[in-house]
């Protein structure tokens, strides 16, 4: 079995070109935007925040899917489990970038003594912000961010290390399997307390500190998870095209497609629940967020978001043959990743930028740069170990898997 992945020159070149575009865009951004007016400066930092947080969350979704399937004792994932492992092992990189960007925004970025992105850093005598101060303050922000990113990165690294340790363990030895099982429970608890509740409030929702929604973290999680699954699928299809991952059959692709389909609906469900409760209650301090997004300058993104992230994947992936077709699943996976990138865009931008938003060279360039980092780091990690989890005790289960 051809189980070793050597990074093809074309992939390396692509990642280098994307990375180059990202660096050039960053340099141009520093020159053009940081020297511009206050909205240009805000745009510079907001775009960095948007992309680094988005990529941190979608890579962490890979750690989550490993933990969830391990706790459910699912065997089907074993055929391609080196892919989520490799993505999860690189959470530290994106987490580090996100933490640096956010700390710079919190501590360095000021315009006229005010912080235009995280308004709560400089609350003045705003009663509402003073009331939220026990949660929204720089000390808490730094502490929670470091703990969150540190734990995610640790588990991402640990899961891969355990899986590789299984290769040299005696055959059918379940010791590592049960260690992994227990650690998965711990990780899910941590994940529930960070990604699914506090972290998105702190990182994203607090760009509009007067607005709040208790469903916000669920909504962010659904977004991150469905794009994380799409990311895994893109890597699996890529490796399949390279002639690797022989154990992956149409049945596995079908199940990945089902995950994308199901969590597209879940995302819509949560998105709509948040929207409808706020619409129905009609409380001014809650509706202000949707006023800006739905009827204000962002309405085009608001509706595009709904069409790209719900209607298209829903209608296209509904039929069984389209979930088993490499072209349609790849197309939808790319669409979902772009759509949820747009979703994160409209979570973050309306607060600091208002009507002065752009979706131009800087946004796309930084996105390309992050994609370059992702391809570069994940392909290196993939190449560092066997692509088949040879000695995994669920290997047989994954070979005979029927979706």
């Amino acid at each position, binding site marked *: 079995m051809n189980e070793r992945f050597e990074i093809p020159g074309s992939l390396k070149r692509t990642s280098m070109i994307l990375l180059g575009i990202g660096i050039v865009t960053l340099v141009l951004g520093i020159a053009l935007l940081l020297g511009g007016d206050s909205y240009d400066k805000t745009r510079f930092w907001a775009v960095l925040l948007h992309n680094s947080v988005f990529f941190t969350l979608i890579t962490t979704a890979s750690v989550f899917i490993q933990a969830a399937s391990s706790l459910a004792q699912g065997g089907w994932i074993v055929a391609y489990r080196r892919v989520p492992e490799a993505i999860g092992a690189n959470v530290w990189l994106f987490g580090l970038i996100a933490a640096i960007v956010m700390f710079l925004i919190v501590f360095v970025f000021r315009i006229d003594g005010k912080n235009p992105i995280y308004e709560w850093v400089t609350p003045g005598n705003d009663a509402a912000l003073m009331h939220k101060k026990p949660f929204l303050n720089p000390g808490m922000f730094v502490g929670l961010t470091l703990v969150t990113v540190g734990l995610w990165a640790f588990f991402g690294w640990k899961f891969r290390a355990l899986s590789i340790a299984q290769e040299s363990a005696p055959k059918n030895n379940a010791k590592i399997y049960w260690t992994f099982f227990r650690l998965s429970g711990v990780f899910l608890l941590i994940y529930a307390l960070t990604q699914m509740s506090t972290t998105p409030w702190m990182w994203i929702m607090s760009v509009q500190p007067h607005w709040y929604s208790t469903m916000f973290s669920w909504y962010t999680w659904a977004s991150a998870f469905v794009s994380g699954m799409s990311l895994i699928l893109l890597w699996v299809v890529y490796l399949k095209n390279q002639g690797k991952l022989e154990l992956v059959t149409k049945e596995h692709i079908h199940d990945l497609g089902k995950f994308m389909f199901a969590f597209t609906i879940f995302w819509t469900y949560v998105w*709509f629940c948040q*929207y*409808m409760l706020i*619409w*129905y209650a*009609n409380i001014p301090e809650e509706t202000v967020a949707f006023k800006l997004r739905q009827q204000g300058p962002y309405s085009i993104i608001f509706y595009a978001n709904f069409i790209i992230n719900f209607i298209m994947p829903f209608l296209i992936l*509904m*039929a*069984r043959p389209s979930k088993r077709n490499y072209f349609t699943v790849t197309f939808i996976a790319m669409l979902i990743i772009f759509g949820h990138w747009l979703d994160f865009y409209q979570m973050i931008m309306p607060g600091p930028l208002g009507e002065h938003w752009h979706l131009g060279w800087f946004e796309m360039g930084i996105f390309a740069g992050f994609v370059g980092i992702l391809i570069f780091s994940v392909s290196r990690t993939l190449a560092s170990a066997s692509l088949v989890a040879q000695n995994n005790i669920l290997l047989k289960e994954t070979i005979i898997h*029927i979706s």
Partner: protein
Amino acid sequence: MAIKKFAVACYDDEAVLFPAVAKVRHSGYKLHDIYTPFAVHGLDNAMGHKESDLHIAGFIFGLCGTSTAVGFISWILTGDWPINFGGKPHFALPAWIPITFELTVLFAAVGMTMTFCYLNQIMPGVKKHVFHPRQSDDYFVMAVELNEHVNENDVVNFLKETGAKETSVQIAEDSWWYGRFDKTEPYQLLGQ
């Protein structure tokens, strides 16, 4: 609805059943159906059934549910009996989404269940012939249809060669009927 003659073979092992199914299909005898005590994965493929179109029926039922809900609510709340709920517009689509969703699911689920029952000929109170009482216990029971083109003894001997534990020839109703087993079933056991 027809009374037909069947050769019946009982197997006690999946590993024997699958090659037997392949042999019967290869030989050209007409496979009527196979009755198993539990769902056997891959048996539908082995028998040559194509993918079911049940989900297309489900999609159509779902669309019926969606249009029923949206049509009915919008007729009530904008035409027949408009009510002012907290100053919301009469055509308040977000508020209707939950009901639309529920009716879509309800129509799709109920419609698919009934289609499934119809296609498989099962319904409360409706009877189907039981080829062997142990088909719900530990036997995989295969019924092969006999007609004027095949020799009864050839088929039975062929089935025995494929590893059947028990064989028999029966004249029975091939589809469903409403009534009682003891009074209305036109069943004859011809040979063991």
